């Protein structure tokens, strides 16, 4: 969950914020049914929260119920600039795993994408590969 003082954007389905590592985090609400409108709102929230800084994204899909084709195609980012460098998807239920695997195959996003059941491992993968550390 987001820390107290950070900027948070709430949309109908998602809660989005930028964490202390520079990872953009977005969590879907319980039993969320994601449509194209929700997906577009989320993209806009990610862009605003990162100030178009192209961060890696950690999407928590653990409580998702469904996502329609238009929304999946939108998240695949095939005909637009991604605005993010990578996606780590956090899954838990069998249902969320099915949805996650669609993003690895049929609706593959145009940036590196990996599925995780552990939040720590997801953060580790994003930090290790997609967060630039400033030289001392």
């Amino acid at each position, binding site marked *: 969950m987001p820390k107290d003082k950070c900027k948070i954007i709430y949309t109908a389905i998602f809660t989005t914020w930028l964490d202390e590592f520079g990872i953009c985090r977005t969590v879907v609400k319980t*039993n969320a049914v994601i449509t194209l409108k929700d997906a577009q709102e989320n993209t806009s929230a990610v862009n605003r929260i990162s100030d178009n800084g192209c961060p890696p994204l950690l999407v928590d899909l653990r*409580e*998702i*119920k*469904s*996502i*329609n*084709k238009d929304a*999946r195609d939108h998240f695949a980012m095939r005909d637009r600039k991604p605005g993010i460098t990578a996606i780590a998807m956090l899954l838990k*239920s*069998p*249902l*969320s*795993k*099915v*949805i996650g695997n*669609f993003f690895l195959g*049929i609706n593959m996003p145009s940036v590196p994408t990996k599925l995780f059941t552990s939040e720590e491992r997801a953060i580790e993968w994003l930090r290790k590969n997609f967060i630039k550390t400033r030289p001392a």
Partner: protein
Amino acid sequence: MDKKSNRVYDKIFRLAGDAFNGHERTPKHLLRALNKVEGELKRSRINHIETTKRINNILKVIEAYARLDLQKKAPVGRSGNHFDALATGINMLGEELQSSTVSLNEKVVLLKEVHHRVKNNLQIISSLLRLQADQIGDKKLASIFCDNQRRIQSMALVHETLYRSKNISKVNFANYLEILVRSAKGAYTDVRKIQFQIEAESHELRIDIAIPCGLIINELVTNSFKYAFNGRTKGKIQLKFGREVSKGKGFYKLTVSDNGVGLPKNFNINNSGALGLQLVSLLIEQLGGKLLVKSNNGTSFSIVFPSMIIMYP
């Protein structure tokens, strides 16, 4: 309590679960244990009914998708369990299938339209050549125009067969032969009675194979019309097409034969000097095939070419 009653208590308490371990063996506790077992049986029956219902719902959706009725959706519950995962996965696959089917249908319609337009354009060129041939006084020159007109017509017919067929990428060669012969009959309107006989197996050929085959047939049939029945009032042209297997490899065999006067002695297709036969030779090379010529009670040209060839790698 006798031994038999003790066994009954043991069994019922065991079925009722750990909570009844070491319980007092009284009718009151026995009734409680029985109520618990009965409740569990009821719940399991309800679960079984629910499971069967959900499986049937998913099966109905799969059956609908198999019929390409892709609007149907499996109900998804709120628990995110394995059934919900199955239903969600199937629904999502249905959406993807619908999207692919729509784009595939659009492509088929577009491709048919392209074949239609190519055929129309070739038909226009063919008609122009015929009109010009009619205006030329020189018979030899007019004949050259007519030969080219028929060559273009044979190609146009491949495109026509394609846009009329169900399989947009392949030509049913037996159907094509029928149409080609019909067109050839219309083109040669002379007083002689020339009969056509077709024996063709129903094979599907790719366009890059069907067009050279069509051109070869056109040249050989034209050749028969022009030279085979000189001085005769009737004749027969036979077309055969089929697939053969030799040494484990598949071949197509195309034969154009007539019962005409036969070929001149020492005939060699490569030295014949006729443009049509030179074209036949080149097209056979393009197909990776071989030509067998027989001149005995007429003429027979057989072309054998591999049934699996890549023309334009």
